[in-house]
């Protein structure tokens, strides 16, 4: 039968399921914002053939007032809307904050933080990062007698029971577990917004809160090098300084290659992986009896990837250098928990990077992809929050490559997304996804001018300013 022949072909092309992220502030308080726009948007996405949408659910919104008091009502409304629209839902549980739009941590957590600033990550200057809790307190009873892990677990359990009617049907695609700053498995090594026109710095190690320092000290003592446990590397540059500003990241003979460097970086990265392991195994066990996949997001720290020491990756907690395949440990941890990995930055291509930053998103992506494939971890993609020129083209390229084999979540719905400057491009993108070059080449070119969408020309300098995730 004809459809049989097509079956395989379509399968091959459609293997990537496409999602779009809902606005970060789609729910505030207990209600849905811009209900009508969301509703029209969902219909449009459905007609366009998207598999579903991603819904960020914020700790700071649901458990806003006091510990254990959850308000899911707005999110339930959204889930219902999504179900009615015939779309699937991919939920992201966000235990972090958003700066634009502003979504803080729960009020009661911030209250605790006022007196105990050591529940937050701190940099060398002692400045706390209030975007999420420090991984060092994961198992310390710092939140009204409970550990953050317990609080996260209660949150997940409450989510599971509240959304039981959706889990397995509307929410079949997955639940993404927030793992750190911006939901990503990393240290907040870069603070503030990265500007696209300036060379990003190396970032800073974040091992200076009391509890991290304590862990470091213990570890150093256990290794028989107590002097190494007194603090982070003294010769690492500050946030916005270039890697070359100091000697730690020096390409040749930098401290990173020294035994101390290896000691510190091993510890620093293993803490991060252990944190990820804790959260993902928590999620896996909570949702073990539900037919959902658990996802975790790993950042694409692509600046300075062209150096030997990969400073941005090191400060973010990935001990990945020219001589060490650091992502294998990460992939192994995901595989252990049967979780899938989300990689953002699929829209970034090498040619639009600032030359000075020695950045290479494409090769980093390939590197992580290789590690994941080695451990059989499925990869879901996202575009970066800052946007990129020719981003859709790059996304398509990635979707046809091995770097992406599960789904793609386009970030994110909103005014920019539906704007006449952007939406037709997106429609074009979706339509072209299933149309290999081979076919488009066969079509008479004049047909291309018949519809609104067909006639859109991709602007080479298009830059999508998406809200931050």
């Amino acid at each position, binding site marked *: 039968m004809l459809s049989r022949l097509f079956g395989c072909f379509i*399968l091959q092309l459609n293997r990537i399921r496409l999602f779009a992220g809902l606005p970060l502030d789609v729910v505030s308080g207990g209600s849905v914002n811009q209900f009508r726009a969301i509703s029209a948007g969902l219909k*449009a996405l459905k007609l366009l*053939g998207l598999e579903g949408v991603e819904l960020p659910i914020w700790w700071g919104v649901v458990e806003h007032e006091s510990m254990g008091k959850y308000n899911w009502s707005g999110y339930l409304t959204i889930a219902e809307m999504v179900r009615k629209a015939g779309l699937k839902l991919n939920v992201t549980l966000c235990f972090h904050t958003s700066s634009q739009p502003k979504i803080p941590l729960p009020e009661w957590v911030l209250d605790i933080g006022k007196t105990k600033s050591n529940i937050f990550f701190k940099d060398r200057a002692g400045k706390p990062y209030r975007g999420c809790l420090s991984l060092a307190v994961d198992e310390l009873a710092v939140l009204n007698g409970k550990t953050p892990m317990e609080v996260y677990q209660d949150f997940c359990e409450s989510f599971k029971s509240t959304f039981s009617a959706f889990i397995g049907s509307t929410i079949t695609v997955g639940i993404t577990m927030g793992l750190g700053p911006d939901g990503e498995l990393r240290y907040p090594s870069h603070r503030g917004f990265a500007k696209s026109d300036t060379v990003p710095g190396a970032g800073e190690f974040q091992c200076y809160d009391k509890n991290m320092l304590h862990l470091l000290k213990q570890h150093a003592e256990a290794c028989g090098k107590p002097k190494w446990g007194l603090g982070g590397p003294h010769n690492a540059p500050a946030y916005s300084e270039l890697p070359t500003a100091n000697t730690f990241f020096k390409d040749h003979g930098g401290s990173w290659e020294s035994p101390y460097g290896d000691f510190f970086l091993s510890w620093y990265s293993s803490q991060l992986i252990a944190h990820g392991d804790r959260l993902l195994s928590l999620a896996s066990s909570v949702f073990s009896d539900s037919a959902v996949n658990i996802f975790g997001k790993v950042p694409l720290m692509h600046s300075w990837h062209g150096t030997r020491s990969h400073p941005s990756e090191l400060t973010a907690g990935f001990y990945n250098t020219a001589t060490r395949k650091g992502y294998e440990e990460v992939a192994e941890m995901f595989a252990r928990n049967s979780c899938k990995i989300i990689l953002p930055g699929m829209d970034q291509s090498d040619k639009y990077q600032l030359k000075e930053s020695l950045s290479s998103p494409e090769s980093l992506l390939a590197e992580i992809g290789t590690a994941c494939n080695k451990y059989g971890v499925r990869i879901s993609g996202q575009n970066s929050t800052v946007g990129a020129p020719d981003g859709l083209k790059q996304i398509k390229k990635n979707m046809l490559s091995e770097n992406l084999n599960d789904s793609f979540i386009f970030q994110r719905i909103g005014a920019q997304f539906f704007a006449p400057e952007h939406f037709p491009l997106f429609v074009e993108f979706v*339509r072209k996804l299933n149309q290999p070059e081979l076919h488009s080449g066969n079509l008479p070119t004049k047909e291309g*001018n018949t519809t609104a*969408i067909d006639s859109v020309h991709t602007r080479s300098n298009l830059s999508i300013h998406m809200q931050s995730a």
Partner: protein
Amino acid sequence: MAAVTIDSLLQNPTLLFRPKAKVLLKPPRSLDCSRNRKLPLSRGSCLCSFNPRRTIHVVRASSSETALIGNFDISSSDDILYKDIFPVKRIEKVEGKFFIRLDRSKDQHDWQLTVGCSLPGKWILHWGVSYLGDSGSEWDQPPKGMRPPGSIPIKDYAIETPLKKLSEGDIFHEVKIDFNPISEIAAIHFVLKDEETGAWYQHRGMDFKVPLVDYLEDDGNIVGAKRGFGVWSGAVTGQYRIMSQVAYFQVIYRIPSEPTLGDVGALQQFSNVLLKSEASHADSQNNSIESKDSKNKNRCLEGFYEEQSIVKEVSVGNLVSVAVRKSPETGKVIVCLETDIPGDVVVHWGVCRDDAKIWEIPAAPYPPETTVFKNKALRTLLQPKATGNRSGALFTLDEEHFGFLFVLKLDDNTWLKFKEDDFYVPLLGTSSVPGQYGQSDSTSEEISSKSYTDGIINEIRNLVSGLSSEKTQKTKKKEVQESILQEIEQLAAEAYSIFRSSITTVPEEVVSETETTKPAVKISSGTGTGFEILCQGFNWESHKSRRWYMELKEKASEISSLGFTVIWLPPPTESVSPEGYMPKDLYNLNSRYGTIDELKELVKSLHEVGMKVLGDVVLNHRCAHFKNQNGVWNIFGGRLNWDDRAVVADDPHFQGRGNKSSGDNFHAAPNIDHSQEFVRKDLKEWLGWLREEIGYDGWRLDFVRGFWGGYVKDYLEASGPYFAVGEYWDSLSYTYGEMDHNQDSHRQRIVDWINATNGTAGAFDVTTKGILHSALERCEYWRLSDQKGKPPGVVGWWPSRAVTFIENHDTGSTQGHWRFPGGKEMQGYAYILTHPGTPAVFYDHIFSHHRSEIASLISVRNRNGIHCRSLVKIVKAERDVYAAIIDEKVAMKIGPGYYEPPSGSQIWSLALEGRDYKEGCRPSLIILFASAIVVPFFTQKYIGVID
């Protein structure tokens, strides 16, 4: 062979354009047309299709269907894991009779013509008369007394009268026309129209003609054929078959959504329907039903009765219902399939393991009457059920299967499929959530709508993958796809406007608001970027200097700096009239406006200042170079040396040998027959040449009332313009000289045309202009809101395709056919330049004392990013004031009345005010824009004005 053709024109008068198509849909109306078939049926040969929509509502629509459901319910609804009803459609030939009878009415004084048809359908007799002494084939309106009740006059030459069943039990729909033989009527002409399908039943390409008098000159011819009923005589029956599958196909796709914008065009595209007559006729000369008696040249009518068999292919709605339940004893899954399709139905089926839906043969046991087909599928003959005319089968399957796939085979050539794909019934997953499906009505409905959209999505996917093997299928799918894309576009625009309005203003954005943004994204020929502002770059006098191109070139940068993005140039071809609207040699571009080289130079300068250029192309008519043998001008010369086949047949002045016009006729020149392939090919080439040679970016299409919009679509697709707008100008509705408030029928005609072009072109919003006339001139500002609180013109229904204007070279300038009320121009511009749609400004107004105000309005429009799809909220439409807020950013009022925008969260700044001194001190127009920044100076000024 007698050839009978059905004319095109699938104009469906019931079709109303709705600006926002819903995703949930109405029940398919075609379900009605198949019930109670008393007539012999034979199965259509090739085309069946599946209606993608499934809802339980449909099921409730008729008793037999309820029974189908009921059957499942017997097995305790708790067991049912999945239940679905697939309405399916088949084409069935329905044979019926069609008769014409002429006899004396009861009083033996008057005569009566009866036309009847036994086929189900909504039959309309479209008829007219000819009077003694008339020549040619034009019809006239019959006298009032002759028109049966329920008749509707169509233009000035025809009447439409519905055929009715006299009583419920009647087989025939009939219409009776009484007439007095002493009248001056020479003949009654008619064609039969089926409103349901839009098909026209004609008589060998002509109308049926019943002569009521004989002509002397006919006498000689008729001798020997005394009773000239060649066509109708005795046993010879012609069989009229409508080959309307293609059009039908479109109908199916249309059913799911409410009429969306693109698909009517699609419908019409296929409406050049052929009607073949299978029977041969003894007398092929006759094209009229003539009751002739040579001896009696006076009106000695003789009654007659003739009957024809007529075959219509109708779409028949049937249902296939599927229920999946789990056997509590064996743990196996049982698929129960039933249908009310009559006759032997074979289910060609298999199972699949995953989403790839690859067919496999499951393990035995199989239902009775099952055979294996080429190791790929199973074939099971459905067994008739004890009750009703239904058949069904039970399939017992192992639990691990993912889905059940099937298609239905009705006979060797007839397959019923799920659109182009297999029917699919999910098996897996159902068991994990027992009871979820079919639990409640609402659940079922949602599932239904979901599977509907899934169907559409699959459709898009198939399309996008470019996998359809047949080109025709591709075309059809493309139509569907485009209408979906349009719907997506609308939804996105809606979402965008709401999202955007709620963006909190941050300082950076305020800065950007002051810049004029011109998105460089091309969207479509119907809208340009959506942010276009059009300048009509000439008036009725422009040809007089003979160097208009050069004069305009001087002004290019000035016009561009006012904010215009598109300029419309005068018709460039050689023309019999100096203004250019009577084109002769299309390839000769030396005109009264200048030479071809000057034109190129002008276009180049306009491009240099960033404007797009529209060429004014006259496609409706063309002046001939030579006379034919009768001395009629209908032979063309020049590069396009067409003969009289290129001229429409129904304008007697020009004796064209083409087909009838697909639109209204322009009587001053031969109207081009666009149904001719060679004509279209030549015109496409010409448009391509204009694009290439001159550099035109798009078109202003003259007199598009004259031919079918589907041809325009063809031309636009071939020439790929950046922007195109058509002039569809006809009269608004008036009652006793006063304009009606409701101009829906007027704008419907324009929207219909845009629809026929499939949205590839916009149209001038004549409706809005007309309503503005009355509203401003008579101080009746309430006219500016329709019953639904939307703008009353085309702009209220299809803003993105409405090109709003208040004046052009015909209505104003030195012709003044329909001049905008004097002194009210700025109110008119305040309206169109703040509202959605694409506004067009007339040259005379730009270069007048209005110039600076127009420039301010354009700048407000650009600064606030108002575009052709902006949202307009009418706040006041009262006797003396109209006020609206556009995109929640710009507030405007016109009229002497008072209006103040809500103070609330927005701070309004004054952009422009105008004063009409006759109306006292209150400004006649005020335009404000929302600003997040407090600008005390403006605010104070504004408050001062209002007080």
